[in-house]
């Protein structure tokens, strides 16, 4: 496969230049050919990132040169595809510093990873009727609803850790650590919490929280959907028990996600879906299952996406996660300063530390109208409840506009955003 051009890989310390990064993503040049006067400003990486040429090429290479199903054929292509899938598993393992590739389960995404946990934990020795699970008010619906279903089906208790709602607190909008600590003092089996809130960018100090939970013998599952492409995630340093994320938010394809689990806990979970590829021996009387991770990978997966995620990981590593984090925090700081200068803007609070997301409302203009007006200027933002209705309710709004950043963003993107917001204000009069 093509190697990244030197400006990326050469100087690992130099700040990222969004304009150079944009060149790695064909969508920007393709769009510029159609919209030369107002090139695409993509501020919706929180929903999904754009794809670098290397990821697209890896998928294409698979379909064009060695496409076959995995684990089934003895012929060359099937072997090569199977090997590629296992290489992707190793790439994921290295990315998040898992102890072994066997800790890495491929799912279809964060949503499936969380559903897998909520569906299987009650059938394992790890969680039983009457036990308590704690989530937080910062969660995406994907880290709320599966636990509600589990609560209702298995009579498990579900408690919610609040955010700090005091507008005068420096942690306004962040997780309320004292309230969480109190919740965890009561007998609890599992804490499922986000690493970074998609709706506001509130960064959760998960390492400290995991340590605190473990002191009470509580398992911790982290929703890392908004973290893995934006900071270095080391599951062993975090010491988490489960960690889930999506390929499409880390510059990889849709259709693939990752569930990391500690070895003994994955081994304690029963199968989720069942069928081909996850069995040892099947008879009509009894079936024995593969050990993890294969136990959780029933049926033909999205092979191309799994292959693509390796290219995405190589992209992240070539750019460097420390540089990405610095780049995005720089963008956020600039965005906060520039947005604050716009009259009538309200920026949603994100606690003490904010990751690459700024969520806001603008006067009486509904976020959907903002989204449409910005789109007219070829600026893509997210408008709505961001699949986090409870969080927005806590913050007293039904919907917000959200700008979220990625490697390809530049200060000038934020200037365009601000100019377009002012245009919307002028229209509304």
């Amino acid at each position, binding site marked *: 496969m093509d190697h990244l051009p030197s400006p990326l890989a050469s100087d690992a310390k130099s700040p990222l230049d969004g304009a150079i990064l944009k060149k790695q993503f064909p969508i920007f040049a393709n769009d510029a050919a159609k919209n030369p006067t107002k090139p695409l400003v993509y501020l919706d990486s929180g929903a999904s990132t754009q794809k670098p040429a290397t990821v697209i090429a890896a998928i294409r290479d698979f379909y064009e040169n060695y496409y076959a199903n995995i684990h089934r054929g003895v012929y060359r292509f099937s072997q090569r595809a199977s090997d590629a899938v296992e290489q992707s598993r190793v790439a994921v393992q290295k990315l998040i510093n898992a102890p072994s590739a066997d800790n890495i389960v491929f799912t279809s995404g964060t949503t499936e990873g969380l559903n897998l946990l909520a569906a299987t934990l009650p059938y394992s020795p790890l969680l039983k009727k009457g036990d308590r699970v704690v989530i937080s008010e910062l969660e995406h619906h994907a880290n709320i609803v599966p636990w509600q279903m589990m609560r209702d089906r298995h009579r498990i208790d579900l408690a919610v850790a609040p955010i700090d709602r005091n507008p005068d607190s420096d942690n306004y909008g962040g997780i309320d650590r004292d309230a969480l600590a109190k919740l965890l003092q009561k007998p609890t089996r599992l804490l499922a919490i986000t690493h970074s809130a998609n709706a506001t960018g509130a960064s959760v100090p998960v390492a400290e929280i995991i340590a605190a939970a473990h002191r009470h013998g509580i398992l911790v599952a982290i929703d890392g959907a908004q973290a893995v492409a934006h900071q270095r995630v080391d599951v062993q340093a975090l010491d988490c028990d489960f960690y889930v994320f999506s390929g499409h938010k880390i510059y990889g394809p849709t259709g693939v996600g990752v569930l990391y689990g500690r070895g003994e806990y994955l081994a304690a979970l029963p199968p989720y879906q069942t069928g081909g590829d996850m069995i040892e021996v099947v008879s009509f009387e009894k079936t024995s299952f593969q050990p993890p991770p294969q136990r959780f990978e029933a049926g033909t997966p999205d092979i191309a996406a799994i292959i693509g995620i390796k290219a995405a990981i190589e992209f992240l590593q070539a750019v460097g996660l420390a540089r990405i984090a610095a780049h995005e925090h720089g963008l956020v700081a600039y965005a906060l300063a520039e947005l604050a200068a716009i009259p009538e803007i309200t920026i949603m609070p994100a606690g003490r530390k904010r990751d690459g997301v700024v969520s806001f409302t603008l006067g*009486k*203009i*509904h*976020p*959907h*109208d903002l989204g*449409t*007006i910005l789109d*007219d200027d070829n600026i893509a933002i997210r*408008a*709505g*409840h961001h699949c986090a*209705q409870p969080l927005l309710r806590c913050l007293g709004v*039904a*919907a917000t506009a959200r700008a979220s950043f990625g490697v390809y963003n530049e200060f000038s993107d934020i200037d365009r955003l601000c100019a377009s917001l002012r245009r919307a204000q002028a*229209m*509304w*009069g």
Partner: protein
Amino acid sequence: MTDLRELYQDIILDHARHPRNFAANAQATHQAHGHNPLCGDTVTVYLKLDDQGRVTAANFQGHGCAISLASASLMTETVLGKTGAQIDELFADFQARVTGGKDTAPPPELADDAERLAALVGVKAYPSRVKCAVLPWHALQSALSGGESGGGA
């Protein structure tokens, strides 16, 4: 006119800023709630019908974007004095126009109202916004048919 200006015509912005008939109505004989789960917009439509089934009062409340507010506002103005059958005709015409179809050539006595509602035709260039425009109408229809409903999802 650009698509954006056609969408946000002055009349739309005016109704969005100052929605008409924006109130609950305790005397309503029919009411229904509409909700768009995708964006969280909500609208409740209140109708008072006389013995002949004519609308003698139409109100709404809720929150949403300029398109759904303006649509609800224009709708409550337009349906006043109309029968259920006339409302069906107006909605059919409205829906055809905002989804990019041809107007349904409503009868002459409804032509002016249909034309007024057509201020919202700009949404046809924005497929994701069409549901904002029709949400209040779905709530209105379910009010008329006597049900609470999830509305125009």
